């Protein structure tokens, strides 16, 4: 019997657990529709903030060891421009039976509430609150994901601002990500997304300079899969809300491992660079083949399998 990839996420029915991670091709209705057509189970839009941003100058992405290091710098049209874009995207995704997750960020706790209120006008299926972008530190200071306290504050403000389901996106570079997850859940987060990129930089010895124009950036892709697995595995032991496990997933086995670590959905970002949005249908195919072969009838039967047995 063929395994089923169907996922239930906060009552949203999805064809499969793969989510286009925020910042990956989430810039237009047409490109998000493309990801949907090529096999994604849900699409996250590029994080939108209070005002338009052009982001950092090139170089903004570099390959690293099977992964990527980026400092795009949150390029986005601003939340007000984003609303019609999200509406149009939502219309198209709905026709294909896919949910839309809308990502947002802001420079202050209060601004998170305001941006969330604006984005909520587009009625996405989920608001993903990006409190963990490592690439705007020089402007915004330490990300809110740095401590349980600041993460919880943002969550509370967004929770008050909108009725839609919210997921808080956490950063890996903290001593205990599980405690931060606990804090955001206790302030009303419906889900947790983990992880954002790992703060990092490349230097070119011949140039004697950082390569990214922004000097530092965030590491993603294969290189960080073990970091993401550990984060999700820890969070899953601390909270009972669903987790969108993201980081380094590039094949069906990776996705299975992420679900075994406790994830309900699986975010895919950098792997898109390997073969374009077709990566989603490949990962789904591989995941289904793995599940069928190993006798997992559905995602639930696999979820959390690598967690300590109670």
């Amino acid at each position, binding site marked *: 019997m063929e395994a089923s990839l169907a996922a239930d996420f906060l009552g949203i029915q999805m064809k499969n657990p793969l989510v286009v991670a925020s910042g990956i091709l989430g810039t237009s209705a047409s*490109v998000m529709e*493309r990801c949907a057509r090529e096999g994604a189970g849900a699409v996250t839009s590029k994080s939108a903030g209070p005002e338009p941003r052009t982001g950092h100058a*090139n170089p903004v992405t570099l390959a690293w060891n099977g992964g990527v290091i980026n400092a795009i710098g949150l390029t986005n049209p601003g939340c007000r421009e984003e609303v019609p874009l999200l509406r149009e995207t939502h219309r198209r995704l709905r026709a294909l039976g896919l949910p839309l997750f809308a990502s947002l960020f802001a420079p202050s706790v209060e601004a998170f509430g305001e941006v969330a209120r604006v984005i909520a006008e587009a009625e996405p299926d989920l608001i993903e609150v990006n409190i963990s972008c490592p690439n705007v530190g020089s402007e915004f200071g330490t990300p809110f994901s740095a401590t349980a306290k600041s993460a919880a504050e943002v969550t509370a403000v967004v929770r008050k601002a909108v009725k839609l389901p919210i997921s808080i996106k956490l950063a890996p570079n903290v001593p205990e990500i599980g405690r931060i997850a606990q804090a955001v859940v206790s302030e009303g987060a419906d889900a947790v997304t983990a992880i954002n990129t790992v703060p990092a930089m*490349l230097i070119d010895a011949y140039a004697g300079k950082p390569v990214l124009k922004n000097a530092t950036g965030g590491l993603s892709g294969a290189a960080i899969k073990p970091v993401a697995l550990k984060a999700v595995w820890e969070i899953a032991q601390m909270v009972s809300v669903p987790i969108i496990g993201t980081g380094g997933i590039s094949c069906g086995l*990776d996705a299975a491992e992420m679900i075994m670590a406790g994830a309900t959905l699986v975010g895919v970002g950098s792997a*898109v660079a390997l073969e374009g949005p077709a990566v989603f249908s490949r990962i789904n195919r591989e995941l289904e083949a793995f599940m069928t072969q190993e006798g997992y009838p559905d995602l639930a039967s696999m979820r959390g399998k690598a967690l300590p047995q109670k």
Partner: protein
Amino acid sequence: MKTTVNHRSLGGIMRPYRVANVLRENETTHTLLFDGRLPEAQPGQFVMAWLPEIGEKPFSIHANIPLALTICDVGPVSNAMVNLQVHDRLWLRGPLGNGFELKGSKHLLVGGGYGAAPLSFLAEEALRQEGEVVACLGAKTKADLILVDRLTSLGCELRVATEDGSEGSQGLVTEVAQEAIDAFQPDCLYACGPTGMLLALADFCQQRGLPAQLSFEALMRCGVGLCGSCELPEELCQRLGLPGGWLVCHDGPVAMIG
């Protein structure tokens, strides 16, 4: 636990190359020849070129043995690159994107401005495979033309158009190209240049049922299909019969039409 990074490279890391020679094509355009080559570059593919503290921009591969880029000075980054001297370094990642695919044996190449750069690489390959090549080059004025001698000496039949008539026919290169299609009856058309030129060629080829391979430009940031900034506008995709969300860096730069 399997690691799958064996599909398509992520564009590779930046590698420094040294300028081995500089050819002055015209007042604003220089061809830089380098002391190395890229792994397996195809005509039509591009590189992202970086100068520390200045910036990074995409450039078509003009030749690979040795590696050459033809750079037109239009702004701060290209200006710094045009001013590089022999022995200076330029950092490249790539090759990125797809390339042209030679179809049949009669090839019509159409270049506007520095669009001639990838076409010269393509002509070389086509002639190596013993195809017949007609190349149409266009520019505002004679002084803007590049690679005319290079393409002629390779063995292409050349047709030139300038807007002011200072060289070749007066008018647009699209007009010369249309004449060439009728006269030469090519198996496929390959073009690189401004979007307006490409769209005009696309319409004309669609009417004639001639397959076309058009190399587009766009604002590139990641260069590897992640950031979305190089997406071809949806109207253009529809007009060209391309699927929506077409990415110049990943699906292109060459769009296969017809």
